[in-house]
């Protein structure tokens, strides 16, 4: 087939209402009180954050709650320097996976409190194995961003 082929432009945009379940609901409620809560699997004894209602490894239900530390170790990190539609934060910013003390799984979250204009300086403060601590938002509404970011502590 030859001839002109035009483009039809469209947009897909739909509202969603995601049920959280009891474990996530309580996890978010506790964040309002500046508490990071995990749940502990009775079988493998891992403390999972965010709190879950079942263990991904043992396939067992969980209902034992454990508060974990607001401080932890940076497992890995990166900077994000590009933008895309639906992005939750203006780039550039730093993202990390944080192993909080008392938890057996990592938490992906922002790493902040460092000046990214000077990358060399920032990289000195933000490093794998480095310690970070949760910085809370003033107004907490019960979602994962009630923790504003994790700040390097030294």
């Amino acid at each position, binding site marked *: 087939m030859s001839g002109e082929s035009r483009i*039809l432009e469209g947009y897909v945009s739909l509202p969603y209402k*995601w*049920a*959280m*379940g009891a474990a*996530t609901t309580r996890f978010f409620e506790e964040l309002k009180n500046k508490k990071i809560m995990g749940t502990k699997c009775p079988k493998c004894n891992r403390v999972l954050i965010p709190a879950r*209602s*079942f263990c991904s490894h043992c*396939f067992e239900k969980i209902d034992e709650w454990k508060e974990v530390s607001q401080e932890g170790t940076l497992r890995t990190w990166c900077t994000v320097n590009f933008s895309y539609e639906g992005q939750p934060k203006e780039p550039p910013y730093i993202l990390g996976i944080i192993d909080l003390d008392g938890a057996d799984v990592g938490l992906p979250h922002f790493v902040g409190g460092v000046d990214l204009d000077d990358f060399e300086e920032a990289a000195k403060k933000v490093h794998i194995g480095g310690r970070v601590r949760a910085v809370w938002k003033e107004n907490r509404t019960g979602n994962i961003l009630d923790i504003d970011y994790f700040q390097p502590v030294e």
Partner: protein
Amino acid sequence: MGHAVAIIGTGQTHCGKRTDVSYPELIYEAVSRAFEDSGLSPDDIEAVVSGSMPPAMEGVNNPHLYWADAMGAGGKPLIRIATCGSTGISLAHAGFYHVSSGLFDLVLVVGAEKMYEGNPQGVMATVADPFFQRPFLAGAPGIFALQSNEWAHRYGLEEKRVRMAAAELSVRNHTDALDNPYAHIKVKIAVEDVLKSRVIAYPVRILDVCPASDGACAVIMASERMVRKMGAKPAWIRGVGYCGEEAFFGEGDKVVWQAAINAAKTAYKQAGITDPRKEIDVAEVYNPFTFQEMLFYECFGFCDFGQACELVEKGVVMRGGDLPCDPSGGVLCTNPIGATGLQRAAEIALQVTNKAGDHQIPGASTGLTHAMGGLDQFNGIMIISNSL
């Protein structure tokens, strides 16, 4: 033929508006019940197949990866299968081929949907291509109303007669759903209620139409070798058939519907069925719309073309008749789309193993399960029996 395949466990969630659980938790509920039913644990499973309707329904891309842990799939082979409304039967077929190929002995098959999290009709509208069909075919009722009217017209069926037969099917489904612990819509209705209910798309009224549901279904399939080893008394998959056709609604004949006819023929041939009316004891026909259910009776050879109303009028397809259809209450009362087709297979597996509880069809040994998908475009069949 490949290796024989059996269904050795099923698990369904309670369906409805399940805001009490997250999407993975809903799946976990169904999967746990399948393990409980089969006496197996996640460690026994060698591969997992899962699927849902368009992921836009819940707003998560790659939902199978989001739920991997809820199925105990970590570290295991996993494939996502999706074919719109027929997703559930396509999942059952995919599970079948995993075992039939000889590559696996135990496979977990999971279908799910959480339709209250998105905008079901908005998403259904996006099944239609954006160039020609999307602006017109807004949602399913319109399509099915078109199809039903064409069917009645083709055979010169009196409007009042078709209307009454459809109303009786609605009442049958609603009544049967009361006996199914997992069903969504549980209300007692009478024929007058159907006839008085609001018209959605003529001739289809609100009580002719399925709901949107949250729900999940899990089925565990096993090889013959594993069945013997476990000493299980399973439901055997005796025939599978699937057929799809053109994307454009209106291109093919939706009355003498080749996709439905071929799918049934293929499955019958594999199962050695020559007279479906006599040899099938129970059927779970995919019936999101009452009128369309009758059209399927004809395509599946339950009666001659144009004769479906009679099956309803004579009570053949009612409980107590000689070919009871949808004793679970069917899709008409429960429709978590990605799970719906798999629920049909699970229900027939329960029926032929005498485990269907209050909605058991006494003595059922061979059943037909069906689902339809695409843009009124795909049909899939599975014949399930208590003997090989």
